[in-house]
């Protein structure tokens, strides 16, 4: 097609005046052509790009298909085109609406579509108040919010009711100010976002507290942006409010009931499991089942055999299969089960109930299992059975009989053991008992006490009975307890009985012998008392004798010595006087003097002996070396005269009476000097005296002393001389008073000295021995304990 230039110019002016632009599309090349105004209208980015695609690209994405189809239709049918769409205006960065009119036309075998285009103003679309009023009759609350501050433009009555407000409280007011309790700042931002993006916002189940009701209502809110054609943007928000209160409440109630039921099931002491399918998958379990299975909480949806492999050879699986097949409920008490708990196979007992679960077609699809763990009860029961058996054993072993008094029936029943004693084999009525050979009153007493003393009800009695068969007497001891019913009435008395005949006999025998022994003891006591008195008398007598002895000693020392002294003195006087006259023969007078002198010595030694005999030693620590020194001083004259050789080893300190010990040593040494100063033939010789000491155990004492020794350690002192010695026969006699082994004229002495020595040794808990052979010297050995009992430690 071709146009003359004028026409083209006039047409262009006309088009411009009408606000029209022109365009054409070549269907073969799929290129369009348009004037400048068309290019501008569509906002083409690249004016040199005339492709159909570039054109379509300018169309609002939502309307592209629609536009494309309209073009395709027009070209296909070679008819006209009228299509309106939005396209992006690059100047205002917003969409405007464009309307295209066109007509298909063939030119030189090419199909062209040509026409004009015009921008059209979209009519402002507003939701009319009429629509809202109509919607009041529906169950949907509606409101329209203005974009600026989200204030209410329009609402229907239901909306106001749903959110618990009055229409006038809302209209014209911003959403945030009208219902602040429902709408926060955050909410407002969301709604602004809806307006900006054009997306719909749903807020389900908003809690709306209503002043008139205790429980809140629940409303679903939908916010839909409304497009303003004129402004080419979303300017209003349509609010749809649907009341879902009843649905929500219903759902919440259902949830609560479900939770409650779940709680009941979970906390039930009965373990519950729902097993589904022939392989018994665990569908539902409660805590009790989890506890029993002992496998922890992760057992759901697993076959039972997988969770509890230990049941493989136990009856459960078989039982479950049986229920599954027969559709019959299975119930069993105290079923034994071995269950792996905490890594250990444990024996348990369960009361179980397996119920088949049937679907609509009465087909089994699963089993509901109830089981109660009764292990503790069963164990207790078994233990009780055991202790009952033990008790029976004890009864048998102790040879006890058992008996029961049935109070209502007035009958006594008993075991075989009792039969053997009382001679009756079957139960006895009270009446029959009263005719038996026993003390009925005693039985009645015990019986009355037992049935009236609630709640203890103790029955205790010991009685004698004669067996009518054997005529033997039995002493029976019975012990029992009364059982009372709930009203405190005695129903029966049950207990044990024992034949205590032999014990009682034994007791009687014992009592008799105790009595006898007591009498014997009393008699012995009396005798003892008598001998005690005798002892006291003897003691008194002794102390009196002691006093007499002391008096005797005094008399001996003083009154006997005095006349002796005078005899000597007067003899001397006579000698003296007649010496002057020079003719007196002194021979007889000498005899008198010597006798008196000897008697003086005797009396003096006897006195010493009697003193030492009666005195208790004054125990002190005594150094024997000092004692020996003193003795040598006392005997210095004799020692010098005889020129004696005295050799003494160092001596110990011992516990003893210094005076007595001095006497002992002095007598021993003077004794040795005396018998060593002359030989058997009467010739003078120098005495050699050896004193030694040794520590010994009591066991080393001479045999005849060991039994009398009280101490563990002793000193053994020995005095060896080179004197005339004596015959071994007299080694004991030598220590007797006035025992002389030699003639008075040969050796002077009282014959008391060695007796004193022995006395001193004995006073110190010691001993003395003498050994000798005639002409071989004498050996005296003195044994003294290392320590005296009184001064020990």
């Amino acid at each position, binding site marked *: 097609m071709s146009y003359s230039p004028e026409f083209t110019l006039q047409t262009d002016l006309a088009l411009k005046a009408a606000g029209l632009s022109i365009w054409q599309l070549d269907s073969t090349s799929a290129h369009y052509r348009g004037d400048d105004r068309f290019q501008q209208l569509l906002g083409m980015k690249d004016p040199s790009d005339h492709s159909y695609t570039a054109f379509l690209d300018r169309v609002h994405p939502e309307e592209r298909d629609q536009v494309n189809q309209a073009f395709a239709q027009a070209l296909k049918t070679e008819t006209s085109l009228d299509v309106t769409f939005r396209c992006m205006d690059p100047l205002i960065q917003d969409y405007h609406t464009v309307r295209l009119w066109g007509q298909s036309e063939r030119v030189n075998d090419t199909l062209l579509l040509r026409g004009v285009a015009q921008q059209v103003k979209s009519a402002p679309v507003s939701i009319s108040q009429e629509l809202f009023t109509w919607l009041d009759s529906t169950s949907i609350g509606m409101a329209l919010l203005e974009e600026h501050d989200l204030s209410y433009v329009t609402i229907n009555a239901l909306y106001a009711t749903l959110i618990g407000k009055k229409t006038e409280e809302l209209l014209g007011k911003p959403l945030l100010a009208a219902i602040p309790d429902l709408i926060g700042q955050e909410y407002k931002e969301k709604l602004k976002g809806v307006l900006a993006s054009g997306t719909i916002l749903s807020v389900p189940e908003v809690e709306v507290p209503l002043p008139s009701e205790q429980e809140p209502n629940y409303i679903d809110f939908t916010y839909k942006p409304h497009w303003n054609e004129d402004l080419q943007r979303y300017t209003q928000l349509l609010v749809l409010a649907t009341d879902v209160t009843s649905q929500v409440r219903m759902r919440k109630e259902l949830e609560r009931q479900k939770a409650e039921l779940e709680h009941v099931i979970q906390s039930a002491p009965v373990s519950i499991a729902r097993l589904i399918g022939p392989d018994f998958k665990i569908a539902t379990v409660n805590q009790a089942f989890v506890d029993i299975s002992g496998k922890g909480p992760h057992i759901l949806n697993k076959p039972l055999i997988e969770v509890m492999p230990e049941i493989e050879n136990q009856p459960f699986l078989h039982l479950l299969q049986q229920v599954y097949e027969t559709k019959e409920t299975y119930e069993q008490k105290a079923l034994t089960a071995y269950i792996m708990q905490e890594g250990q196979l444990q024996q348990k007992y369960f009361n179980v109930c397996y119920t088949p679960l049937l679907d609509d077609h009465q087909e089994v699809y699963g089993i509901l299992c109830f089981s109660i763990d009764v292990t503790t009860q069963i164990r207790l029961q078994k233990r009780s059975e055991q202790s009952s058996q033990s008790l029976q054993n004890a009864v048998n072993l102790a040879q006890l009989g058992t008996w029961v008094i049935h109070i209502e029936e007035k009958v006594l029943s008993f075991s075989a053991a009792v039969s053997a004693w009382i001679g009756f084999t079957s139960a006895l009525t009270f009446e029959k008992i009263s005719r038996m050979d026993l003390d009925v009153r005693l039985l009645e007493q015990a019986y009355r006490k037992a049935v009236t003393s609630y709640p203890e009800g103790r029955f205790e009695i010991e009685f004698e009975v004669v067996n009518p068969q054997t005529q033997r007497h039995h002493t029976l001891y019975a012990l029992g307890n009364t059982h009372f019913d709930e009203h405190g009435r005695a129903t029966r008395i049950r207990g044990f009985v024992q034949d205590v005949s032999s014990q009682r006999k034994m007791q009687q025998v014992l009592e008799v012998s105790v009595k006898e022994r007591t009498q014997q003891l009393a008699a012995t006591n009396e005798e003892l008392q008598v001998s005690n008195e005798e002892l006291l008398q003897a003691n008194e007598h002794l102390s009196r004798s002691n006093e007499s002895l002391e008096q005797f000693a005094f008399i001996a020392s003083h009154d006997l010595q*005095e006349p002796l*002294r*005078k005899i*000597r*003195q007067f003899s*001397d*006087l006579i000698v003296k006087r007649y010496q002057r006259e020079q003719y007196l023969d002194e021979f007889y007078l000498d005899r008198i003097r010597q006798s*008196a*002198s000897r008697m003086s010595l005797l009396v003096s030694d006897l006195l010493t002996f009697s003193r030492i005999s009666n005195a208790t030693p004054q125990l002190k620590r005594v150094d024997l070396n000092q004692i020996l020194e003193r003795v040598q001083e006392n005997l210095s004259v004799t020692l010098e005269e005889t020129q004696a050789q005295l050799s003494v080893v160092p001596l110990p300190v011992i516990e003893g009476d210094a005076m007595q010990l001095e006497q002992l040593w002095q007598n021993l040494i003077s004794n040795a000097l005396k018998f060593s100063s002359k030989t058997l033939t009467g010739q003078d010789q120098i005495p050699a005296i050896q004193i030694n000491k040794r520590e010994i155990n009591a066991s080393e004492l001479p045999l005849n002393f060991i039994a009398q020794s009280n101490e563990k350690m002793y000193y053994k002192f020995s005095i060896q001389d080179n004197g005339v010695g004596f015959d071994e026969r007299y080694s004991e006699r030598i220590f007797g008073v006035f025992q002389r082994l030699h003639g008075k004229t040969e050796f002077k002495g009282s014959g008391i000295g060695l007796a004193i020595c022995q006395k001193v040794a004995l006073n110190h808990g010691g001993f003395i021995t003498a050994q000798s052979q005639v002409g071989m010297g004498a050996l005296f050995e003195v044994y003294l304990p290392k320590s005296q009992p009184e001064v020990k430690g």
Partner: protein
Amino acid sequence: MSHSFDFETHPLIILEDDEDDRHIYENILREIAPYLQLRFFSRGEDLLSALESRSLQPFLIISEVHLGGMTGMELRRKLDEDEEIRTKAIPFVFFSHPIFKRELEEAYHLTIQGFFEKSPDLTAFQKQLDSVIRYWTDCLHPNRSDVK
């Protein structure tokens, strides 16, 4: 220095109730000290009253311990209690036989100038007496009139 002690006015007193002993004393003393005036008392009470009357000024008192009535010990105690007699410091010795240790201990709690055992040997007895008399003849004491 020599002193002439007046033995005429200061007798040797012997308290002794045994006649035998008095005889022996006299016998020996006549021999060893014939210059002494001897005065025998047989009772302690008599000697005590004689001393208390101040009529008696003894040179020396020889006393037995064991006496009938007042004993030698009792007499000595009485004399100790008399201030005047005590200051005269009359020598006082015991002669007894036999002597017990406990008597010795008791006697030396009193004011005595000696305790001797009458020796059975006459010669020894004589020696005892001789030494005592010699000693007190030589010894000065406040009671002696020859000391100025």
